[in-house]
């Protein structure tokens, strides 16, 4: 009986597991939507599950981390089956073999032709077009009853609509961003790419378009240093008559503002309409999906029919499929149809690697012109130079054999160095009686450090000998170092040069450490007296900056240095001074970074100094007092020398931290103006993650940082040693 029962259980178990294997695993869908767009996507996938029975696991990711996460996760098999992304990065994804071509049942005629073209690489389509994103003109209909059809009309209207003293402007848009400038560039007949497909900036169209927007700003029809937040505030307050933005902005508009959306005006000089970039959002199927057929079905489902309707009505997206415009709802929706109209002039943003190289030089040129200092006709040449510097050709391959030999020799030498022992005939056990106990105490930490610190460190070091291009590594020997140290492609007085950045970094470290130590020591001296009332409270309040995570500190100070809303400029106006544009000049941008980092760093030095002061015996001062030594002599002869041994290690530690203080530079000045305030770490980060993932080049930068610090630590070690023997 028992045996039968066991058999029955076994059979049931087998049957159940077979059944479980039958039920398909849920599809993983990644996106970066929020708000209405996210709700719409959830409803659309729920429909998919209803009709097909296949479950979908949705994952909404923060936009800033999204692309990086995809390129990391998919090759490791940890990625999604389907992901939603803009088409511009398609070429990168394709080069790294992350996306699958569309399935056979993909029908081109279902979608607008330019959306499908945007998803083509080498004649094959990758991805299912979901929606269109492009810029159009939002008009406050109370202020502007009839929108301008040409730039001439626009220019005629602007003076009456603007009054900078009252904070009213005829036109606002994020003028420092190339995405928003592109319609002007194309409207003035400026090509962005030449016949060979390379980017070109030094063109008449570029100069004329820059001169045009410069004029808008100089006449004060348009505010300076416009951010997304400012655009929103001005439009919702009725202080901006017109603005340029995309469909996503509709959700930001206050219900009290009456507005309509029209196509951007035609440039009168050329007769060409202003052409914004067309971005196509698409559902891509991962090349590594284990359920490819289902994944394709999901992507197709989302891009058409019922799902498309939901995304339009709930998510307020501009659908890419033709059929959606036949439905009554969409026909009646003026926002959707006006954006569809406006998108007729739009040029699909090329999905080439070349496109990705355009942003940084263009941003530099645009800001250089708008902030003054560079004439519009010279900006193109400036951008050209930066473009050539950033676009590194792949260096020639090197022969790895001598390197392997060198690595082997170094590994042997290193082991010998670590295990070195003076000559002696004693056995290991005799020389180290505690060996087993030491091993048990050290082993866990050593294992962890070996796997998660040393191996990544060695990999990072060796990466510097490679060139990385779209997923392909090639061994190039010392070519990266040669390029960096020879400052190839730029003069050593330019921000991109290693020597310029090194000088800025050293200045940065020295200024900060001096300020930290001086302020910290000064406060410690004030706090020293144990009889001081409220001493505990002061100490607690002064430690606060240390307790705040440093990226929060950075963002906090960044907002305080804002041109229009910043508290610092608020203080300046309170004192009757002019507000300062902090990030347009090297000196002020650097000062802003230093102020932030000083606020952040002095408490550590204060605490160390306080501890050191307490360890100085009081009798020394009393004896000095008897001998008639002045306060100043006491400070110089007693306090400073006795502080030194405790402060010196803290100073060394602090200097290394400051040298690599990425968060402050990256978040506060962001390297503005033109990369001038970047330090070596943030420069390495940019090469690795913002300039076409040139990991090898970035690693070479890191190795140089490492060598500088190694030299510094060797120097300070000698300093410490003389301190001990003295």
């Amino acid at each position, binding site marked *: 009986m028992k045996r039968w029962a066991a058999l029955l259980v076994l059979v049931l178990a087998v049957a159940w597991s077979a059944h479980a294997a039958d039920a398909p695993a849920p599809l993983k869908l990644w996106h970066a939507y929020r708000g209405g767009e996210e709700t719409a996507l*959830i409803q659309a996938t729920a429909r998919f599950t209803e009709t097909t029975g296949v479950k979908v696991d*949705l994952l909404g*990711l923060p936009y800033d981390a999204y692309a990086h996460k995809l390129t990391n*996760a998919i090759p490791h098999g940890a990625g999604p089956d389907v992901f939603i992304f803009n088409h511009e990065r398609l070429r990168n994804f394709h080069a790294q073999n992350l996306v699958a071509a569309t399935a056979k049942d993909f029908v081109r005629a279902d979608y607008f032709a330019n959306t499908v073209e945007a998803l083509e690489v080498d004649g094959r389509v990758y991805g299912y077009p979901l929606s269109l994103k492009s810029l159009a003109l939002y008009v406050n209909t109370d202020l502007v009853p009839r929108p301008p059809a040409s730039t001439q009309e626009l220019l005629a209207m602007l003076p009456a609509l603007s009054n900078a003293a009252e904070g009213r402007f005829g036109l606002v848009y994020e003028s420092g961003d190339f995405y928003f400038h592109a319609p002007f560039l194309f409207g003035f007949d400026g090509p962005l790419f030449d016949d060979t497909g390379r980017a070109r900036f030094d063109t008449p169209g570029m100069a004329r378009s820059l001169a045009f927007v410069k004029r808008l700003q100089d006449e004060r029809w348009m505010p300076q240093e416009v951010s997304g937040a400012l655009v929103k505030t001005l439009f919702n307050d009725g202080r901006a008559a017109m603005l340029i933005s995309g469909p996503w902005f509709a959700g930001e508009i206050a219900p009290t503002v009456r507005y309509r959306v029209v196509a951007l005006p035609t440039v009168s000089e050329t007769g060409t309409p202003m052409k914004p970039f067309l971005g196509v959002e698409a559902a891509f199927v991962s090349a590594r999906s284990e359920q490819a057929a289902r994944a394709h079905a999901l992507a197709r489902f989302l891009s058409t029919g019922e799902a498309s309707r939901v995304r339009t009505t709930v998510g307020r997206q501009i659908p890419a499929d033709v059929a959606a415009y036949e439905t009554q709802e969409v026909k009646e929706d003026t926002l959707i149809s006006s954006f569809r109209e406006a998108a007729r002039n739009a040029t699909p943003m090329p999905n080439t690697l070349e496109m990705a190289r355009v942003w940084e030089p263009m941003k530099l040129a645009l800001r250089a012109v708008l902030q003054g200092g560079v004439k519009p006709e010279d900006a193109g040449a400036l951008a050209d130079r930066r473009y050539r510097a950033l676009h590194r050709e792949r260096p020639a391959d090197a022969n790895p054999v001598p390197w392997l030999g060198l690595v082997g020799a170094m590994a042997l030498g290193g082991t010998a160095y670590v*295990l070195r022992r003076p000559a002696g005939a004693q056995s290991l056990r005799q020389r180290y009686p*505690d060996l087993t106990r030491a091993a048990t105490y050290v082993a866990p930490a050593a294992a962890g450090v070996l796997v998660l610190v040393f191996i990544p460190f060695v990999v990072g070091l060796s990466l510097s000998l490679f060139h990385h291009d779209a997923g392909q590594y090639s061994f190039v020997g010392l070519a990266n170092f040669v390029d960096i140290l020879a400052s190839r492609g730029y003069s050593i007085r330019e921000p991109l040069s290693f020597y310029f950045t090194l000088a800025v970094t050293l200045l940065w470290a020295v200024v900060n450490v001096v300020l930290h130590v001086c302020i910290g020591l000064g406060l410690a001296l004030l706090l020293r007296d144990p009889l*001081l009332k409220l001493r505990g409270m002061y100490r*607690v309040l002064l430690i606060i900056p240390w307790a705040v995570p440093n990226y929060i500190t950075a963002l906090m100070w960044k907002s305080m240095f804002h041109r229009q809303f910043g508290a610092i400029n608020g203080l300046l106006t309170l004192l009757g001074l002019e507000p300062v544009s902090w990030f347009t000049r090297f000196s002020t941008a650097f000062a802003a970074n230093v102020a932030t980092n000083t*606020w952040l760093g002095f408490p550590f030095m204060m605490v160390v100094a306080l501890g050191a002061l307490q360890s100085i015996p009081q009798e020394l001062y009393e004896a000095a007092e008897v001998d008639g030594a002045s306060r100043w002599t006491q400070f110089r002869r007693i306090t400073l020398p006795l502080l030194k041994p405790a402060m010196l290690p803290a100073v060394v530690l602090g200097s290394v931290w400051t040298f690599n203080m990425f968060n402050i530079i990256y978040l506060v000045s962001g390297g503005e103006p033109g990369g001038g305030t970047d330090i070596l770490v943030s420069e390495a980060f940019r090469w690795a*993650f913002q300039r076409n993932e040139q990991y090898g080049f970035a690693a070479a930068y890191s190795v140089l940082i490492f060598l500088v610090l190694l030299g510094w630590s060797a120097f300070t070690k000698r300093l410490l040693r003389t301190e001990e023997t003295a």
Partner: protein
Amino acid sequence: MKKPSWLKMAGIHAGLSVMCMVTLYPVLWVVKMALSPVDGMSLTANPFPDAVTLDHFREVLWSVDAQGRWVFGRQLMASLIVGGATTVVGLSLAVTAAYALSRFRFPGKEGGMQALLITQMFPATLMLVPIYSILQKLGLLDSLTGLVLVYATTALPFCIWMLKGYFDTLPRELEEAAVMDGASPFQVFIHVVLPLARPALAVTALFSFMTAWNEFVLAATLINDPTRFTLPVALQRYVGEYKVEWGKFAACALVVSAPVMALFFALQKHLVGGLTAGGVKG
């Protein structure tokens, strides 16, 4: 020691008050952003809010995701688990290793100590790519365990150096006396050494906890499931590329900073002794 004149005392108080105001000003500014009902800002130096609302806190604390799950609670939980586990793991690894480095002789000791410090000078962002691959090989991707291991080991070099410096200052006679009384080496370690090292342990624990609690680049890269994000990653959502929700950012920033501040206040007495005693000999 004679009592200082009241004039000098007044000067000291004035100096300290000014510095405290400088310290507090940005913090007040964040409090203002968190409490103000509007996201819009205006050019003013006044760090006090004109009107007060708790809406931003409510929206941050009670936020649910599209599937209706209470995300903030889970993220807080994840942060606490990661912070706590990192402290425990990091501290136990560091204490044993530092004790061995301070008391025993073994081959590779000096070289190992140097190597430990040297790795700290390599920019951490570049180690991200290899760390990702290693965790993936170990099957620890998208898991809090993996995150804890990475945090605990990255904090180790500093912790070990701190603790070793402190152990070096402790007199060995006490341990020898305990051995005379018949205590095993392990008992000596637990009952004699650790209690003596309390200030340094407190500082090290604080440091480990802060590493884990404040970090966001690794967390954002290694964790996929939003319910397992730590709070700094959640905070990142409010300051995206296209729009910044200052109110919610400020409210969330205050929530994230609060535990570390509380720990600082609780441990601040130890802070002074713990940092310097180790530093002197370090």
